[in-house]
């Protein structure tokens, strides 16, 4: 269905005869209907509907005040704060090492990314170098997390559109990824695996074969999901041509990530300003053309393949070496040293009780999370606790684009757009 304020653009799918007949029954545009209605002595009024915060289709506790005229959305105001956790305030109260688990729980689907942004910021402040092996391990886990995040996005979005079985398929793959995370760190989510200076532990022996197995399976499964959804008439009708927004407006709204890439702008921090050895890997950035919901969906689905490529290259090229910096003032010494070296014992003691001190300064460190530019601003005053930690969350900024996207479109398109926007309320509300 095309929204009332747009005609069938150049990207409308080719129509079968049945569809052509269906579309020959035209409805006048909404303004015309209203004008007719007003002359026909009936009343129409705007209805403001409260959408959430408890609603099966809002991804998390998002509250939307939607002003409707019939079925057409005239205005939209998001109300957030329903899962505000005071993470940034809590982080000021803890030593740098202890901030990592707190900050991981912000964007709760991209937990490695939160930790990466914070660790990168602190590493910049402390001027410590992350060894190459740790960088590659970080990349592997980051890209696995990206795939896991996209799988939940795909599952819940398809659930919103009505394709319920995709949800279970995506969870099946995500279980494999969480098994891998559990292998490397012991936890499925919020693993505290990234530490300042590297990663917490090296990967265990069975990790590589299991990961390779997963890398064989994942592209086939992604093909399956693509096949199921791309041949589903309902999904195509709901996504194609709905709620497009051009790249210029998105840029002025501060939107980054797959939403911007769907509109055609190939901005990706992994390519533009590579961090953490991303320049060593060969991968493509999928971009869309129109910027409608279908492009957003297709971009994220394509990113799964690219992430698989990156992981494969990282695994093939995984260098030997330490998995965390050798600087004992920042990173815990390995346990076997504690039995023999007095300095190691003292370092361990100081790090665990007080934590390391960071020279005063401020730094803003951006990375590319599955939702866009995730950045961490850390201000330190020389003590062992940060003076201010702020996470620039992509969903918080992307949410501002929602009202621009859905104005003038149907409420059913609103549901599809919220799904394609991929908001994570933990990140929005922090």
């Amino acid at each position, binding site marked *: 269905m095309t929204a009332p304020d747009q005609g069938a653009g150049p990207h409308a799918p080719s129509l079968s005869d049945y569809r052509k007949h269906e579309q020959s029954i035209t409805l006048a545009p909404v303004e015309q209907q209203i004008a007719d209605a007003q002359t026909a002595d009936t009343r129409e009024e705007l209805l403001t509907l409260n959408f959430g915060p408890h609603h099966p289709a809002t991804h998390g*506790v998002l509250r939307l005040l939607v002003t409707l005229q019939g079925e057409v959305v005239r205005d939209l105001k998001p109300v957030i704060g329903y899962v505000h956790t005071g993470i940034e305030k809590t982080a000021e109260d803890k030593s740098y090492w202890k901030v990592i688990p707190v900050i991981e*729980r912000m964007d709760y689907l991209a937990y490695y990314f939160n930790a990466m942004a914070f660790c990168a910021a602190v590493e910049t402040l402390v001027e410590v170098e992350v060894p190459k092996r740790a960088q590659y391990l970080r990349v592997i886990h980051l890209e696995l997390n990206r795939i896991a995040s996209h799988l939940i996005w795909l599952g819940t979005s398809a659930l919103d559109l009505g394709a319920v079985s995709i949800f279970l398929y995506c969870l099946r793959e995500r279980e494999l990824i969480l098994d891998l995370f559990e292998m490397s760190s012991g936890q499925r989510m919020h693993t505290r695996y990234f530490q300042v200076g590297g990663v917490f532990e090296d990967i265990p022996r069975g990790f590589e074969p299991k990961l390779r197995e997963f890398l064989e399976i994942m592209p086939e499964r992604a093909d399956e999901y693509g096949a199921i959804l791309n041949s589903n008439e309902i999904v195509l009708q709901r996504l194609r041509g709905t709620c497009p927004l051009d790249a210029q407006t998105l840029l002025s709204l501060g939107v980054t990530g797959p939403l911007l890439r769907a509109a055609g702008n190939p901005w990706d921090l992994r390519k533009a300003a590579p961090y953490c050895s991303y320049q060593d890997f060969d991968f493509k950035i999928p971009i869309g053309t129109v910027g409608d919901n279908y492009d957003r969906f297709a971009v994220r689905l394509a990113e799964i393949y690219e992430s698989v490529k990156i992981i494969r290259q990282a695994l093939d090229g995984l260098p030997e070496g330490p998995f965390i910096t050798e600087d004992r003032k920042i990173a815990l010494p390995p346990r076997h040293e504690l039995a023999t070296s007095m300095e190691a014992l003292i370092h361990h003691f100081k790090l665990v009780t007080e934590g390391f001190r960071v020279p005063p300064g401020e730094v803003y460190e951006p990375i590319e999370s599955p939702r866009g530019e995730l950045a961490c601003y850390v201000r330190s005053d020389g003590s062992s606790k940060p003076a201010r930690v702020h996470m620039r969350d992509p969903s918080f900024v992307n949410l501002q684009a929602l009202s621009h996207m859905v104005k003038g479109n149907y409420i059913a398109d609103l549901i599809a757009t919220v799904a394609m926007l991929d908001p994570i309320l933990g990140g929005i*509300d922090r």
Partner: protein
Amino acid sequence: MKREPVSAGPHPVDPDGLRVRSLNSAQLLRGSALEGPVQPVHMKGAELEEEELERHVHERVLTTSLDKAVAWARSNSFFPLAFGLACCAMEQFHAAGPRMDIARFGYEAFRASPRQADLIILAGRVSVKMAPIIRRLYDQMLEPKWAISMGACCSSMGVFNNYALVPADKFMPIDVYVPGCPPRPEGLMHGVLKLRKMVQDDPAKGWRERYQASGTEEVLPEPYAGGSAGDVVEGPREGDAEGA
């Protein structure tokens, strides 16, 4: 009508129990031609007396109280409210997912409306802004209802002990607390099964007396409080001022 026991040997056997078995196939086939109609024992209930009757009933009828039967039914068919707040919701999805299948136990019917649900699984951190809303949802649920607090954040304050969060038992009664950050899907299932056992064993919800948690009702905001229970809020009627 009584028959002579087939075997009156040194081990007295239960005549009823053996009656059918003691007939050989020839006898069975000949049926009513032989010594009168052959009735299967289990259909003889109306004709049994006293001791046999008691044994008959004991073997075939399960006695219970209505409470227990209803508790058994209720405990095996929780309808959870589809309510996820934060990271624990992701593990809740996995509990409903293909590996740790919540449908094995009968709890896969996640309802969107609180009116249709009887189990609220608070999955995630409860912020100050969200607490009244959760309380309202809980009040809208119909008795009997149960609440599981999933995760450390709503059970206690979890990782974040600060101004923005409220532990769930500060504003609503919780039956089972599932610790973890986030708890594994197996952990959530353990909690749900624990609740199941609690419901089966104690239909009167005696565990609630400690915090007087029965009889919660929805408190409607002022404009509706004056109407009777069956009032439907009507739109503007004809004759009303426009926009009223």
